[in-house]
């Protein structure tokens, strides 16, 4: 997918976030398919007649070319790769949430081609159906799996026996579900919902509700104390 020539690397990428730099440049955080998350300097990208102005936009599939070995590389070219319908309304907020999740959880220079493809599919799904909780949950599960934090959703962490659909469990982000103590204050999840998540079966509406609570619980563990801006900021506009 990506190629190298004369010290320059080319490959498919998405912009995750941009920051203005000096008068006319742009600092671009990108997710590349084969080189992971990178920070690129796009010189002159903010000039009024720059050819990449308007192109270096989040959620737009791009072909990028860059060079350099340091943590901050220099972008030498950006081209439109393919059509991705623009995200608007709630789908846009969901997209921003995904980008923030990746900015927070993905290390730089750590390639995850599978995650890149899943991200591309997720953006397409968001554009098609709008902000659907299931679309976000699938991506979150995939992201955790790619990072090596994949959730164990099928066995009781204490007994190593399959989950009882009728029982209620607490969830340890590292170990998995444990039978909830009768008077426990911890957040609890139904065995049925956990099994359905493991099977990627979202037919029961309660599965999505439970999954949202579970992912919040697990992501909070991995994100540490600082909550996500997108979640904090858009509390008034409910994210699915």
């Amino acid at each position: 997918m990506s190629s190298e020539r004369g010290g320059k690397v080319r490959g498919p990428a998405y912009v995750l976030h941009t920051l203005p730099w000096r008068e006319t440049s742009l600092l671009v955080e990108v997710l590349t398919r084969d080189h992971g998350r990178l920070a690129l300097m796009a010189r002159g990208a903010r000039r009024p007649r720059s050819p990449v102005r308007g192109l270096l936009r989040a959620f737009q599939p791009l072909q990028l070319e860059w060079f350099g070995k340091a943590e901050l590389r220099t972008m030498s070219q950006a081209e439109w790769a393919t059509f991705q319908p623009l995200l608007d309304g709630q789908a846009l907020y969901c997209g921003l949430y995904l980008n923030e999740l990746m900015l927070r959880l993905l290390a730089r220079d750590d390639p995850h081609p599978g995650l890149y493809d899943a991200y591309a599919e997720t953006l397409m799904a968001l554009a098609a159906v709008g902000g659907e909780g299931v679309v976000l949950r699938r991506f979150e599960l995939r992201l955790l799996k790619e990072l090596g934090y994949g959730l164990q959703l099928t066995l009781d962490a204490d007994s190593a026996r399959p989950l009882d659909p009728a029982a209620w469990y607490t969830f340890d982000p590292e170990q998995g579900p444990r039978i909830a103590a009768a008077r426990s204050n911890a957040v609890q999840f139904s065995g049925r919902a956990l099994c359905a998540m493991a099977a990627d079966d979202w037919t029961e509406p309660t599965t999505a509700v439970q999954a949202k609570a579970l992912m919040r619980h697990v992501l909070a563990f991995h994100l540490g104390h600082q909550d996500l801006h997108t979640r904090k900021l858009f509390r008034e506009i409910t994210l699915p």
Partner: protein
Amino acid sequence: MRSPSGLEALIDALRCLPGVGPKSAQRMAFYLLQRDRPGADRLARALSHALTAVRHCNGCNNFTEQASCELCLSGDRDGTVLCVVETPADLLMIEQTHAYRGQYYVLMGRLSPLDGVGPETLALDRLVRRALDGVVREVVLATNFTVEGEATAHYIGELLRPRGMKLSRIARGLPVGGELEYTDAGTVAQALVERRSLTG
């Protein structure tokens, strides 16, 4: 050798300007004190006058020296349409077109979710009060077509829609006089997505 404290304070103060680092601030301070003292005096007076005199208009939130700006007080503007823009520069651009006769609300910024710039940084409660003054019938969202501008437009839409306000978004597509061949792919693609019917 230590610089006089007044000079240091000036250099430090100049650094609050966007894009001005320690070197540029030092250059500016030397220039003002050595080469252009009258200019420095004018700058100091203008700055201190602006700080006390210039405020936000009660109506449109743009800069003004009165309680309400000229544009808001002008009798020949259509008070039933309210156009929401990000910056005073955007307002001036729309005014240059002479195509719009309604009134404005200037946000003085935009939401930037990933930078932690949230709704509390924009005076959105004032916008809501302004839009629901009983005269306004339509709110035109004219924020930029950037990710941040779109997020801002959606947010304002969600604030006003439940209150029964008619909302519209400025159109997007090929520039007037634009040729397909020389237009960027993103714009052409979106122009096709947002094509409008000519029948009926």
